[in-house]
């Protein structure tokens, strides 16, 4: 009776250990899906700028990224690609003409089209005649519609309507005024800027400042595509280099890193309980051998291999372990199913647990079988002092 009770306690301990370790592994994957979700691409794009300090204020060569900085960034393992922003070196302004009476000074930036989250081809996003295609941040339109327009009693503008409005763009290059028509062709969620075709921008910059061709290039900001915006390594490297980025994605990274820390702590606890259970199991088997010492010794003298006797008991134990593991995985798998179906997951979680976890049913009992067998066999031979 006592033996059965001891066995139940032992296997219950193993069950808890497996639940802890497996659920940590699955939660790790779930957290990755939730925080580093591929369905929200913005998490994978960060705009880097250098932190303003009393030393670099107003000094473009210090505040911007030179070719060396960009080359170093490209070497970071967390970064897939780097897209530097070109900024206007000339004076630019916009007015609404007679239809919309407004005037504003403007800044422009240029970026590789493949880095911009607007579905346009190179053909569509280029200057044709005197029409400049413009992409602005969706935030700007929202700022106008929900902030400026409402307060000033101005009409609100839908995205489609905004694409139909033409404004005058005045550019001063080499002290010569040039007027273009500006037409918005898309809104970006990724980039907070006013973007025009990069080639066009670069050619105007060169026309304004021909010396730029021979000078090292300085970029005010860079857009980087990262594997995981919540990567702790990325955050520490940014901190080290005094780079700043979108605060929101970094905040999620901090939450994620803290969550992972907790998960790691639970997993370590699970592994500790597992190791403890394994130790108890080995002691348990030793006690069984000691209780049956006479029987084992008689069988050995009759010709029964001690290795086989040990392997029989280890095999029995490993099969029990396999059953406990299967039960743990079934419990975790059903938990995952209900979690994925619940509103918390927001449809981002898989209804199945990571298929690799199922391999634990085979791998762990086999490893434990060999480990326990070897340990007990050595102990048995030592205890016989042969």
């Amino acid at each position, binding site marked *: 009776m006592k033996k059965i009770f001891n066995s139940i306690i032992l296997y219950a301990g193993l069950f808890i250990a497996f639940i802890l370790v497996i659920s940590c592994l699955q939660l790790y994957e779930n957290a990755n899906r939730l925080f580093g979700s591929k369905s929200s691409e913005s998490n994978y794009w960060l705009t880097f700028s250098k932190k303003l300090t009393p030393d670099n204020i107003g000094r473009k060569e210090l505040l911007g990224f030179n070719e060396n900085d960009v080359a170093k960034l490209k070497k970071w393992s967390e970064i897939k690609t780097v897209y530097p922003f070109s900024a206007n070196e000339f004076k630019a302004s916009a007015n609404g003409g007679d239809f919309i009476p407004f005037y504003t000074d403007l800044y422009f930036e240029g970026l590789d089209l493949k880095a911009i989250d607007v579905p346009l081809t190179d053909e569509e996003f280029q200057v044709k005649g005197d029409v400049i295609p413009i992409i602005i941040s969706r935030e700007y339109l929202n700022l106008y519609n929900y902030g400026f327009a409402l307060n000033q009693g101005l009409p609100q503008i839908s995205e489609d309507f905004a694409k139909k409005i033409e404004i005058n763009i005045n550019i001063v290059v080499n002290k010569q005024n040039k007027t273009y028509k500006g037409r918005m062709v898309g809104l970006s969620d990724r980039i907070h800027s006013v973007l025009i075709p990069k080639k066009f921008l670069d050619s105007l910059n060169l026309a304004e400042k021909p010396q730029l061709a021979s000078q090292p290039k300085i970029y005010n900001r860079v857009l980087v595509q990262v594997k995981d915006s919540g990567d702790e390594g990325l955050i520490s490297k940014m901190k080290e280099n005094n780079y700043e980025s979108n605060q929101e994605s970094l905040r999620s990274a901090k939450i994620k890193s803290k969550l992972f820390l907790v998960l790691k702590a639970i997993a370590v606890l699970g592994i500790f309980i597992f190791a403890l259970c394994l130790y108890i199991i080995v002691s348990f088997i030793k006690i069984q051998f000691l209780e049956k010492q*006479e*029987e084992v010794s*008689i*069988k*050995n*003298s*009759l*010709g*029964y*291999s*001690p*290795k086989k006797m040990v392997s029989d008991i280890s095999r029995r134990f490993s099969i029990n372990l396999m059953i406990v593991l299967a039960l743990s995985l079934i419990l975790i798998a059903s938990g995952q199913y209900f979690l994925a179906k619940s509103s918390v997951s927001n449809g981002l979680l898989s209804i199945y647990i990571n298929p690799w976890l199922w391999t634990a049913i085979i791998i762990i009992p086999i490893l434990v079988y060999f480990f326990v067998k070897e340990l007990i066999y050595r102990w048995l*031979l030592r205890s016989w002092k*042969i």
Partner: protein
Amino acid sequence: MDNIVLENISPKYFTPKDLEQSQIWKKNITFQKGKKFLIVAPSGSGKSTLATAILGTHFQYEGNIKYDQQIVKNLHLEKIVENRKDGVSLLFQDVRLIKDLTISENILLRVFNQDRKKFIPLMEEYASRLGVESLLNKKAENCSYGERQRSAIVRSLVNPTDFLIYDECFSHLDMENKKIAFSLINEVSQKSGSSVLFFELNEFPFEHDYQILHL
């Protein structure tokens, strides 16, 4: 196994009485398969020490014991144990039956992984010859010493090895049972071609054709 060779062996931790007169200690002797030996020695001369050393359960001796050409001391435990299946078996002085098992279960331990049913008629026949047939389903712990001794003899014969060693195996048997057991051992060993080594305090008080060796 065709031979068990003793090469100049002597116990490590005690000196037997009459070591000089011994025909075994410090001598070279070969036990050939099929031959029968009666090793006679008084108490304290190392009968059990020698019997268990031949079985390979300890190496507390100087010199070498060989199974054919192999020195037992150099063999891995698993290899020694493997030899006990078909090569050499010993009926210990203290009988050594597993208490919790029945007599038949104890006897059939010698069958290993072979088909047990095949050996049951043989077991029943030998048990009946030795008068322990009615005990086959009784637990070993509930049997008398003499009954256990006879049961252990059945166990040694049900699947006999090349060398059958008996360490004072008749100590709790009366003369009648002694004769029956001796003749059964002879009969079975004859049939299987096994060697028999009896370790006894005194010579048998009945006729036999065994080679007598004094330890």
